[in-house]
């Protein structure tokens, strides 16, 4: 399929997040929650956020799946914790651009650890795995999903809920 080096895909930082995920668990006092899954491969991500005003005060996730999907959600939660909703949405856009091969996006330092996932863009069948985290974030923030060019669209299983606000 590809001659892209595996080393660009399986970087130490990715495997480290996969094995020692940040912000994994339940957030009892969350205000919004979203679950997304990729029915093609069975990867699942649930995120819970406590919003204070427009600020992501706390965020936690639960999920199962491959190293790429689980590392990216760990990295994403670490990055957006404490940011404003608008900044989180901007980061989602930059990350999505990086997955679609944008050079500008991949040199954007505001992506933090997520930049380690740049190599995924060279593996088309795995891009959906990396985007699952931000699909969940967008869903939780009520900004909708990206259509999947490969057709293996992540879908919301209908359990998105807005609890207290």
């Amino acid at each position, binding site marked *: *399929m*590809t001659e892209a080096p*595996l080393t660009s*895909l399986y970087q130490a930082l990715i495997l480290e997040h996969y094995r020692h995920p940040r912000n994994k668990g339940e957030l009892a006092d969350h205000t919004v929650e979203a679950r997304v899954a990729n029915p093609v491969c*069975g990867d699942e991500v649930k995120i819970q956020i406590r919003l204070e005003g427009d600020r992501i005060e706390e965020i936690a996730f639960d999920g199962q799946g*491959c190293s790429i999907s689980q590392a990216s959600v760990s990295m994403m939660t670490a990055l957006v914790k404490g940011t404003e909703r608008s900044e989180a949405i901007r980061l989602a856009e930059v990350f999505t651009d990086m997955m679609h091969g944008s050079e500008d996006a991949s040199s954007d330092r505001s992506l933090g650890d997520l930049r380690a996932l740049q190599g995924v863009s060279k*593996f088309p069948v795995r891009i959906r795995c990396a985007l699952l985290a931000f699909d969940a974030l967008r869903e939780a923030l009520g900004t909708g999903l990206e259509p999947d060019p490969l057709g293996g669209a992540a879908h919301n299983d209908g359990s998105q809920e807005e609890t207290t606000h």
Partner: protein
Amino acid sequence: MPITSPRLDRTALRAQFPALAQEVGGHPLVYLDNAATSQKPQYVLDALTAYYEHDNANVHRGIHELSRRATVAFEGARVKLAKFIGAADSAELVWTRGTTEAINLVASSWGMDTLGEGDEILLSSLEHHSNIVPWQLVARRTGARIRYIEMDEQGRLILDDLPELLTDRTRMVAVSHISNALGTVNPIREITEQAKKVGALVLVDGAQAVPHRRVDVQELGCDFYAFSGHKMCGPTGSGGLWGRRSLLESMPPYQGGGEMIRTVGREESTWAEIPHKFEAGTPNIAGAIALGAAADFLDEVGFDRIAEHERELLSYALERLDDLGGIRVYGPTDLDERSGVISFTMGDAHPHDISTILDSRGIAIRAGHHCAQLVMQHFGISATARASFYLYNSTDDVDRLIEGLASVKEIFGPA
């Protein structure tokens, strides 16, 4: 192109499958995703092309030479395939798009017509979704109830439960011949014998069996047998349903249209004889003809050789996996109870990661739930990696797989 001789000269045999002679990512392709679909030999591709180049016409209606030729080849393929699966009568073989459509045909036609409130359909928990969901659809509409034969820790059906599961309400037992997710070979004869005692019909999902071993539907004692062409060297969109004549004759049509009628009136129509009653519209003529060629090809190689070869590969691969270590293989440990399918997990290396790493070395396997989520639930996992063999695979392919898995270990560390 002639079929290879001597019959199982591996290099000569492999050379007949054009798709296998390519590099992927700079490595010679190792194709180990045969349970998903098989590659096609030149002999089958030629049959497909020859039909379109010389005989292309609609069947059963045109009074002209091309239509006559197309009809002869199309019906000739039916006779061939009927014989191939041991049917007594080629009218008992209905062409379908594959196993899924064959099962849907029975669930929809026989099920909607026959099942009622409280009737029971007995499935097994190692079924492919295509032998679960059609029954759920018909159960919802008729009020029938679905029950399951469970499996043990090796993924074998617990037949001791059968006497309790088979009741006077059991109308249908639908079970796979060979599991696509684990390779388990089910004792169909034993199941049909017990099902007969309560008067239940038996449908067998033969998608994973017909490509790999000699199937005789009469000897199995079942009532319906479904199979796909694309897993047995034939084209996609080809396949069939075998059913007992008396059953097929009593069942209402599955779809309406041309080809399946005798007379059409303003309010009512009458149906053609079987199998045409179930073949509405222009069929997959090229697919059926090429599937006939695939059956010839497999017959020429010989199922004794194919089965023996796959067993050798399975045994060799299981040994090498064991030597490599850190791998959990699912399914029966006794080789008599399994076919050339190896479903496995490797520590915390997710099956999709395993598959990506192997793909980067030109090795194609399948990763995921294999359309068998009940099997995954049984083992408390969400996915496995699956390598599956066919007649053209070799021990070199297994060696390449093992090298690839060693590289997975390197990247992910010891389990």
